[in-house]
């Protein structure tokens, strides 16, 4: 491959790189910059680290952070585990599986707002789920308006919508494992359970890591269900940081605080992802 003329390179690369620079990279810089400003009486004033310092003593921020962390602590392991279980079923070669595979893929075609609307009505006190639970004498529950249930309802909806998507990546990873590897383990006398733990999961580790990291980044920034379902309530029980930032910037007009929250959120996300990578990708070396 020889070196190519500069005009050609510019022509082919410039549109995409320019787009990424202006609409991806620049906003990140801008967020950092704007988080150093505040708006007082319609005037933008340089505030240094005041926005961040104020967050430190801001009860609303800390409560929202707690909700975000608790939300992620539950939803990410749950989604990855369910997506893995689904992927393991998806790759089974059984008669009639083609039909079930199609059903498994259905939530991918459904956007989160659509899922939210459908589930909102399903979850109403007079809705379908309470009706079905009524058969066994349970309920009715206020799934969306009780502080005890609302966050978990959002988790359930996001999980219902999300796991098919993550399943696809895991199916790709599973299909990348040569079938003879499992056959060899089977001949050696490994039970299905042992094959899962000793062969499949270790070989799936890179894909699992990818899915976990990608899932965390999405869920840390989850917005639509909170916006549409609960508006952060009841009693702040679903007020995740992303929604708190949105309210700050677009409801209360404090862009500086909004940007500071987004920067904190992304920084926190990066730290968690970095820890994940360290923990999960160094494990095989220790196993030696």
């Amino acid at each position, binding site marked *: 491959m020889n070196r190519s003329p500069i005009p050609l390179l510019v022509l082919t690369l410039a549109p995409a790189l320019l787009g990424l620079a202006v609409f991806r990279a620049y906003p*990140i810089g801008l967020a950092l910059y704007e988080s150093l400003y505040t708006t007082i009486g319609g005037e933008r004033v340089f505030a240094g680290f005041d926005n961040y310092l104020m967050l430190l003593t801001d009860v609303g921020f800390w409560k929202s952070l707690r909700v975000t962390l608790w939300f992620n602590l539950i939803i990410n392991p749950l989604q990855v585990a369910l997506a893995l279980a689904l992927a393991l079923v998806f790759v089974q070669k059984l008669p009639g599986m083609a039909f079930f595979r199609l059903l*498994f893929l259905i939530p991918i075609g459904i956007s989160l707002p659509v899922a939210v609307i459908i589930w909102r009505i399903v979850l109403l006190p007079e809705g379908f789920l309470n009706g079905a639970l009524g058969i066994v004498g349970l309920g009715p529950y206020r799934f969306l308006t009780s502080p005890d249930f609302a966050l978990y309802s959002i988790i359930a909806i996001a999980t219902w919508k999300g796991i098919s998507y993550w399943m696809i990546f895991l199916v790709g990873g599973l299909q990348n494992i040569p079938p003879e590897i499992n056959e060899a383990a089977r001949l050696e006398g490994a039970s299905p359970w042992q094959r899962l733990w000793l062969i499949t999961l270790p070989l799936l580790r890179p894909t699992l890591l990818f899915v976990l990291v990608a899932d965390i980044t999405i869920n840390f920034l*989850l917005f639509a269900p909170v916006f549409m379902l609960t508006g952060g309530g009841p009693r702040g029980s679903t007020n995740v940081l992303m929604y708190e930032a949105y309210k700050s910037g677009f409801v209360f007009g404090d862009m500086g605080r909004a940007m500071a929250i987004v920067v904190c959120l992304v920084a926190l996300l990066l730290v968690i992802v970095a820890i994940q990578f360290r923990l999960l990708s160094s494990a095989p070396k220790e196993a030696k």
Partner: protein
Amino acid sequence: MPPILRKALIYLAIAAVAFVFVLPLWWAILSSFRPNEAIFRDLFPFTPRALWPEPFTLDAYVAIFERGFGTIIANTLLVAGLTTALGLIVNGLAGYAFALFEFPGKSAVLGIVVVSFMLPFEAIAMPLYSVVSQLGWIDHVAALVVPSVANGLAVFLFYQFFQQVPKDYYEAARLEGAGWLRILWSVYVPLSLPTCISAGLMLFIFQWEAFLWPLLAMPAQQFKVIQVGMAAFQDQYTTAWNQLFGAAVITALIPMLLLIPLQRYYVQGLAGSGIKG
């Protein structure tokens, strides 16, 4: 465990999962064909008739379109279609350049492109609002289309594909005297059709499902796209359940019509990016 019992258990588990996936949708679909006052009938106490669209009516759909849902669908198709077409050209060219040309700093630039798609759109939606308002695009269609055209994942998919096409094709075509555009158009584009489909689907669905960004970028709500339109619909007609379901069904239907015949490409594109990414 006897094999027959095991098989039965596996099928039972599969059916249960499929049930959970399908049931809410089924209820939504059939409810959209019921009159509004009949939505919650048959639930308390629960009877199997709750799973059948009866009494049957198309009122909900008629009402939705009377309320301008058709324009919203057209708007979204326009935005998603434009983004897909421009995105395929822009990202395809960049993927081609990364795969076939050598230039200093290539791997670093490629690395940044790859990292850029690991950061979700939501993370930059708010600062992006400032960028777009500096450009004066707030409440303008360009605000929805232009920022979404360049897509790191699409560049990566094309790069990955073009890279595994044997270099001999390029060199053979060069020896025949073909220029790079000719080579791209008559050799690489036809070969890359599956990648075009998976990248195109990705761009289209991304736009179809966009919610936070259109919400921020189009505050006047003159030009509504579907997800935002639906959410607004929900706020306005809180208890028009059958219409809400109807809007949700239509919103889900269009990407499904694309996904079901093309699911193979979508799945391959996604799964491939996960393994290598």
